[in-house]
């Protein structure tokens, strides 16, 4: 066999069986049946993967058979995906998320959270003062559809009625729909607030300010009729959770925008990626918070009509969230 005098052909003949073996193992692992590989076979993959890598390096330098080099590149890449692929067990991951990752991510965003809360609060105060001075301002802050008849022309009795589920969408049989609608609507708004942060913070800040202004205008309307205390209870039973969630979403967005504008020592793209991943952690939690808020808003608010109980729930939820996020604890290594 004069042909096998070629070193590259001999090289291939000697190793081909290993490559084929790796190929079959990969096909089985990638078919979503990784569990069916025996432990022995699982251990084989990394070894064969490193062999394929070294074969690739050798083939690149000694073989001029292009199809062989292409094959080894593809094989090594596929093995790489398996060896370095996602290896997260969903439940373990979820546990770590709630115990550790989420509170840590929220806590590391405390500066942005403060700024976001401040923007919302200032907007609320401004809107409150404006509406108290001239009730026509109310229409500037609140779209007609969202107000649901609660505007300066409404009677005090009607406004009182909306607080205690005697009118508006207080009818008790529609609660599931209401909760669902509120949840998806709020979740979408907060995902927007997060994603818009990329555009250098400004749209996120605008969204937070608008959110705050609506709140201020709403409170001013009720305060004018001497219903401030009751309206606050009506709002805060879920509002503590919801406003906190929206502020966190905004702060995650702000952190991305900030990283893009002022990347510091990292490159802009790297800084954005870092802030993006941390923000995404916060956002995953925000969706959970909004789910809780929607349950409170859709069910608890309509079913509990005593002011005291509403304030108690609001205060409890506030204390619980704050303790969960900011209670000092040891940071656990990865």
């Amino acid at each position: 066999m004069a042909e096998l005098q070629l070193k590259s052909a001999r090289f291939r003949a000697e190793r081909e069986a290993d490559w084929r073996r790796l190929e079959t193992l990969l096909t089985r692992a990638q078919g979503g049946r990784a569990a069916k590989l025996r432990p022995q076979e699982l251990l084989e993959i990394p070894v064969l993967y490193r062999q394929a890598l070294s074969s690739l390096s050798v083939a690149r330098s000694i073989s001029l058979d292009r199809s062989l080099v292409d094959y080894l590149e593809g094989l090594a890449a596929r093995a790489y995906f398996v060896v370095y692929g996602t290896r997260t067990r969903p439940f373990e991951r979820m546990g770590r998320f709630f115990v550790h990752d989420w509170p840590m991510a929220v806590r590391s965003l405390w500066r942005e959270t403060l700024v976001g809360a401040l923007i919302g609060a200032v907007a609320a105060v401004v809107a409150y003062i404006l509406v108290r001075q001239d009730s026509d301002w109310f229409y500037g802050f609140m779209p007609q559809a969202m107000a649901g008849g609660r505007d300066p022309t409404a009677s005090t009795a009607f406004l009182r009625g909306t607080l205690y589920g005697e009118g508006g969408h207080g009818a008790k049989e529609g609660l599931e729909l209401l909760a669902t609608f509120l949840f998806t609507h709020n979740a979408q708004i907060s995902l927007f607030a997060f994603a818009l942060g990329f555009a250098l913070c400004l749209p996120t800040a605008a969204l937070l300010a608008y959110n705050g202004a609506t709140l201020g205008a709403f409170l001013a309307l009720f305060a004018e009729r001497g219903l401030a205390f009751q309206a606050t209870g009506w709002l805060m039973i879920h509002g503590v959770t919801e406003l906190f969630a929206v502020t966190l979403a905004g702060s995650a967005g702000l952190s991305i925008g900030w990283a893009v504008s002022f990347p510091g020592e990292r490159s802009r793209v790297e800084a954005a990626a870092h802030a993006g991943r941390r923000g995404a952690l916060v956002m995953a939690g925000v969706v959970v918070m909004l789910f809780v808020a929607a349950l409170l808003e859709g069910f608890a608010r309509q079913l509990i009509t005593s002011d005291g109980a509403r304030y108690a729930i609001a205060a409890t939820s506030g204390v619980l969230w704050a303790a969960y996020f900011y209670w000092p604890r040891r940071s656990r290594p990865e």
Partner: protein
Amino acid sequence: MRAALANWRARWSGRVPPPPGPRPFVTPEGVDLRLAVGLYTDRMSAFILDALIIIGLLIAISLLAMFGAWGFHRGSIGTEGALVIWLLGAFLLRNFYFIGFELRPGAATPGKRALGLRVIARDGGRLTADAVFARNAMRELEIFLPASFFLARGMGVDAGLIALGAIWSGVFVVFPLFNRDRLRLGDLAAGTMVIKVPKTTLRPELVQEGPATVRGVAFSEAQIDAYGIKELHVLEQVLRTGDRRTLAEVARRIRTKIAWDGPMDVTDRAFLSSYYAALRGRLESRALFGHRRQDKFDRV
């Protein structure tokens, strides 16, 4: 001034990203895998496929709920039930369909899988759950924001404002076309990229295959030295494709070029195979001694 302009133009034309070909991608072991970046059109098609699957699922769930309600108490689920399904279902599916599938070992949604794409971490490390979440949360901005501008018609918003919003948000849709790795905003924020999964088929070794050593077919050193690596690869391609007419044409040219004076009764294929074996052997042994002859113009 003119020089500055020309300079700028040259720089600008240099900055236009090339079409995605192999991209250097170094594994933790230090070997470059040269991965192919996923094409923009492929990714578009994959997304459309996924969107169709989601809509199909929603319709299926609604139908099931309708039949279920009818079966239990001979009633309908009513508009309210249908709304709950569509509002909550659309939100959950939209957000967790992508995340769920990309967290699986294949790191691809069914649409991506159909087009042979997958998600990887750009830095060569493991693809984390956070990265997958981040790249999909950004989709809200890239796809659903422009879409909501188009659906916002008739809500009392100025038409001009809608048009401006659509254009502004439309920028994100074409964003991947303006960078080398075809990163969309979500990829940028998550440190991921989408690549084409390489195919792995090991073609037979050409040097062993067929009657490579036809009696009487031998080449002199000068004849073998007529070509370099580039021509060898073209010859490999020709032999593997095996088109009769191309084989004849290539054999004719090589015979002319090397002034072939051996037996003329060997078939074109046998002739080319033996020449390929001889040329590869020669080039490989020279490469071992440190000289890779790139093409036929490369003289030592």
